[in-house]
């Protein structure tokens, strides 16, 4: 049995989307057990009239909610009865709970997970790793995308190892091609951090290092993992998502501008639907926090039931593949830590 605690509040469509996503996930995995964190009466109301096995759902009553505009480092310490803090504490204290999923405040979740959960052995800094679809039908993981603004080359090497193992074990990518985000492809490009990291990554036999990558090549399909400091990684992900959405919007506007374009647009409707599905983050789950002692998955704030279900699936597969154990094994072997 894999037990996952789901923070059911704090998202744009909470708690309904979280509860519906939970029910959908229970339908996918027979050995999945969920703990719903949040106001119990509100959660029970959401479950009314829905078909699910009540023996596979528990409640963690938490009357408070952490809002997205609250200061993460404060609320994570002061709002102890919030659905997020109670879920993190349960994950830390209960050995039978394997993972946590939340669609609430990213800042609060990072602060809470980093300061309460602890790290896998040998990990210096946990890192966020969202995934995006690529042009050849694959996926690319970007690590880090916001947990660590300042990093060292050693941090980047650990991000590369963790994300590489994640893509391999959770998405079945064989020998993931790892790239370092930089301003040019040549080894000597970038600042001292990037140049030293390039050398370090080249010498790391546990990864399949493919060299530097410029941001425009993120979705090319030539890379499976992109390593970056949290600031650059976050800008990269948001710029890519924003550009794609703006272009889609512009395309729609142009098509509706003239009658003849509308006719052409109608003929291409299936293609547009397919394109929309391809770019819809709801279909790809959330961003995982790699390197914490237990699995943490952060869904988009506007996640609907499909996205919540995908996030639970990610957490389930991470636990099933013993990703944490595999990361510890490689990191400790490489760094000569004692297991």
């Amino acid at each position, binding site marked *: 049995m894999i037990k996952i605690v789901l923070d059911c509040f704090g998202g744009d469509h909470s708690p309904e989307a979280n509860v519906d996503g939970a029910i959908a996930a229970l339908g996918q995995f027979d050995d999945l057990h969920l703990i719903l964190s949040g106001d119990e009466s509100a959660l029970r109301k959401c479950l009314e009239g829905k078909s699910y096995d009540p023996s596979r759902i528990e409640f963690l009553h938490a009357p408070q909610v952490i809002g997205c505009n609250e200061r993460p480092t404060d609320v994570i*310490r*002061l709002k*102890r009865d919030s659905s997020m803090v109670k879920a993190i*504490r349960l994950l830390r204290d209960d050995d039978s709970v394997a993972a946590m999923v939340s669609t609430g405040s990213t800042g609060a979740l990072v602060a809470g997970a*980093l*300061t*309460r*959960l*602890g*790290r896998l*052995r040998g990990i*210096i*800094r946990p890192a966020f790793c969202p995934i995006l679809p690529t042009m050849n039908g694959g996926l690319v993981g970007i690590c880090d995308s916001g947990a660590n603004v300042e990093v060292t080359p050693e941090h980047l090497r650990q991000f590369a190892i963790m994300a590489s193992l994640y893509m391999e074990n959770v998405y079945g990518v064989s020998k993931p091609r790892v790239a370092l985000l930089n301003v040019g492809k040549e080894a000597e490009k970038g600042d001292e951090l990037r140049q030293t990291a390039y050398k370090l990554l080249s010498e790391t036999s546990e990864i399949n290092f493919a060299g530097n990558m410029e941001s425009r090549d993120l979705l090319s399909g030539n890379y499976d993992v992109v390593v970056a400091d949290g600031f650059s990684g976050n800008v990269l992900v948001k710029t890519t998502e924003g550009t794609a959405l703006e272009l889609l919007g512009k395309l729609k506007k142009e098509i509706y501008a003239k009658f003849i374009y509308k006719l052409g647009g109608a003929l291409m409707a299936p293609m547009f639907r397919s394109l929309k599905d391809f770019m819809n983050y709801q279909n790809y789950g959330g961003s995982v926090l790699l390197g914490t002692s237990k699995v943490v998955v952060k869904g988009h704030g506007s996640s609907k039931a499909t996205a919540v279900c995908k996030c639970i699936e990610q957490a389930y597969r991470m636990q099933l593949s013993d990703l944490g154990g595999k990361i510890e094994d490689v990191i400790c072997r490489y760094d000569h830590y004692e297991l």
Partner: protein
Amino acid sequence: MFEEVKAILAKQLRRAPETITLDSDIKKDLGADSLDILQLLMRVEDDYGIVIPDQELAGFRTVADVVNFLNKQKQ
């Protein structure tokens, strides 16, 4: 109080409890980094139902500093 803090530190830093003394420097002797110290303090806040003021957070160097702070809170 020392025994309780020692138990938290031993588990968190994966160290034998007997290697932790009141004089142990949390960073230098026990090998903790800044994230370990924050984690320790969050654990203390959760377990004792207190909030450690921000200005105090940076002042903990040895195990005795943490124990003395908690003893004061208890009084």
